[in-house]
């Protein structure tokens, strides 16, 4: 069920001239500070909803893609953040060199609920329907919205597949999703609500700050907390499980090879002022030192930073020829775009730890060329089962659905793994389920979708090229690791 909100305006320009203003620098970011590198079907677009009139925050990003473009006549946008909706622009001739511009937004019920919740209203509490409730916290707004674009879709896909398969121990599974706004306090509030609603598990597909807040908020409540994105590790217990990549393994795969290839050894670390970057940079210092390099400087920025000019100055002054970025989401997008614009690509090579397909698409091909990362899943990696997974995903959410990433694939597989555990042991407590989920899965026939080892995943090194992230190396596991 969608509701439409529309507005229109007649302007003194020809239709193709108005059309050309969309996302252009000339048009001071029309519409809603739109940014898109190309006006063509499939192009990534971001816009800003001005939510806070007091200027306390930079607003909320609408993130999506252009799905239909007729030059001079129409632009259709499908977005997944902060809710799944559609925005249609129409340009119609209205006399000599005049154009009637119509903007229509289709807002689903979930979008209205998101707005009410953001306004401060408690979300409606669904009546008990006997289903097993799984909580998933993602970021539909804030810095993390960029890398979370497919997270909710992939969580939903997993739950739909589980239900199609008969559910868990004879019961249906129901997803309870919430947006933490990339804010730790909000994540804790949402987790408390999930516990109140009877969720026995909360998957945190968000920052380590949100994960920590959730872990504290539900301590002693017999609820399993599972972190499903790349993280620095630590803080685990039988009821607290952390899956996904670790910076130590990522840097082992990235640091020495990039130093060799670039014949460079002076590093500059750029990250955020919270536990993720603290942990990742500590791992990076060890990796760099083992490889015979040294750290010329480090800069940490709070989540939500949009201007990195001081950081770029510092990098240039430091004489570094290698940059490690542990920035995430919109901050990483801003940093890489500004790095390229400042000419840093000529003097430095950059490795980035949270550079998945969605963040990469927002950085754009020009600013991302040559960036390297090491993650456990890439959409274009021909792992057994991946083509089938992508086919199911596209069948469910359409050709323009955001890319499947390491972060969203991990929450998808984690939900499937948890459901299998719960199916076998429906009476078990959170600690039993946590221990089962923490057990390593070593596939006898290598890495495959649906049976990936999420506890210590196999990594692939990839480099950003004109066609996206191209895998340059499958990292072989060290003996005894």
């Amino acid at each position, binding site marked *: 069920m969608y509701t439409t909100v529309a507005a229109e305006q007649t302007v003194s320009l020809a239709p193709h001239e108005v059309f050309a203003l969309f996302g252009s620098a000339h048009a001071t970011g029309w519409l809603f500070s739109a940014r898109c590198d190309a006006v063509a079907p499939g192009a990534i677009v971001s816009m800003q909803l*001005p939510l806070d*009139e007091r200027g306390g925050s930079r607003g909320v990003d609408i993130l999506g893609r252009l799905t239909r473009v007729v030059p001079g006549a129409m632009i259709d946008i499908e977005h997944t953040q902060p809710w799944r909706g559609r925005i249609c622009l129409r340009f119609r001739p209205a006399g000599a060199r005049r154009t009637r511009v119509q903007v229509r937004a289709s807002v689903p019920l979930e979008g209205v609920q998101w707005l009410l919740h953001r*306004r*401060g*209203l408690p979300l409606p509490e669904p009546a008990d329907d006997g289903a097993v409730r799984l909580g998933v916290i993602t970021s539909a707004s804030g810095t993390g919205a960029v890398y979370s674009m497919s997270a909710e879709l992939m969580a939903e896909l997993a739950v739909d597949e589980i239900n199609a398969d008969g559910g868990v121990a004879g019961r249906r599974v129901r997803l309870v999703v919430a947006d933490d706004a990339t804010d730790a306090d909000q994540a804790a509030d949402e987790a408390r609500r999930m516990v109140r609603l009877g969720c026995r598990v909360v998957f945190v597909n968000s920052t380590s700050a949100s994960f920590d807040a959730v872990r504290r908020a539900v301590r002693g409540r017999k609820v399993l907390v599972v972190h499903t994105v790349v993280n620095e590790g630590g803080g685990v217990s039988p009821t607290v499980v952390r899956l996904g990549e670790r910076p130590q393994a990522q840097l082992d795969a990235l640091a020495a090879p990039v130093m060799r290839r670039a014949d460079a050894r002076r590093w500059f670390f750029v990250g955020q002022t919270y536990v993720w970057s603290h942990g990742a940079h500590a791992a990076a210092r060890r990796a760099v030192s083992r490889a015979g390099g040294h750290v010329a400087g480090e800069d940490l920025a709070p989540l939500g930073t949009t201007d990195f000019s001081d950081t770029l100055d510092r990098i240039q002054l430091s004489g570094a020829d290698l940059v490690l970025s542990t920035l995430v989401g919109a901050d990483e997008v801003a940093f890489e775009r500004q790095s390229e614009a400042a000419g840093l690509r000529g003097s430095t090579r950059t490795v980035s730890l949270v550079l998945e397909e969605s963040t990469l698409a927002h950085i754009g091909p020009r600013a991302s060329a040559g960036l390297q990362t090491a993650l456990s899943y890439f959409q274009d990696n021909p792992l057994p089962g991946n083509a089938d997974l992508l086919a199911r995903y596209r069948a469910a959410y359409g050709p323009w659905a955001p890319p499947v990433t390491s972060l969203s694939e991990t929450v998808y597989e984690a939900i499937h793994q948890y459901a299998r555990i719960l199916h076998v042991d429906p009476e078990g407590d959170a600690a039993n389920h946590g221990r089962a989920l923490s057990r390593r899965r070593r596939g006898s026939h290598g890495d495959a979708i649906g049976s990936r080892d999420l506890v210590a995943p196999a990594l692939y090194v990839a480099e950003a090229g004109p066609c996206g992230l191209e895998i340059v190396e499958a990292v072989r596991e060290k003996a005894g690791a």
Partner: protein
Amino acid sequence: MESENLAFDALSDRVRRRILSALGDEGELTVTDITDRVGAVGRTTISSHLRVLRTSGIVRERRVGRNRYYSLDTDGAVRDAFTYLQSIMRAGVDDLQQATSAAPRESDRGVG
């Protein structure tokens, strides 16, 4: 008064969120009840928040004798959300007028 300008985004306004959350949990409360539940701020602050929330249509007031009871007005809140969406949509297309004056016109590019 600060809360007179009620921003749409309550993420940064914990007091307002706590008021609404208390009303969501309890259904109907007096100013004193709300002040007790929210904590940390005084009755005057709570009252001024309630007045703004009432004006926006998010909270309704019921008077019984000298007592006033407050509760969430979900329909009002939905209307408020649409009014907000409508207003930013309006502002979005209005920005176009400004954008067109800054745009380079093809006729100005001097191709002859």
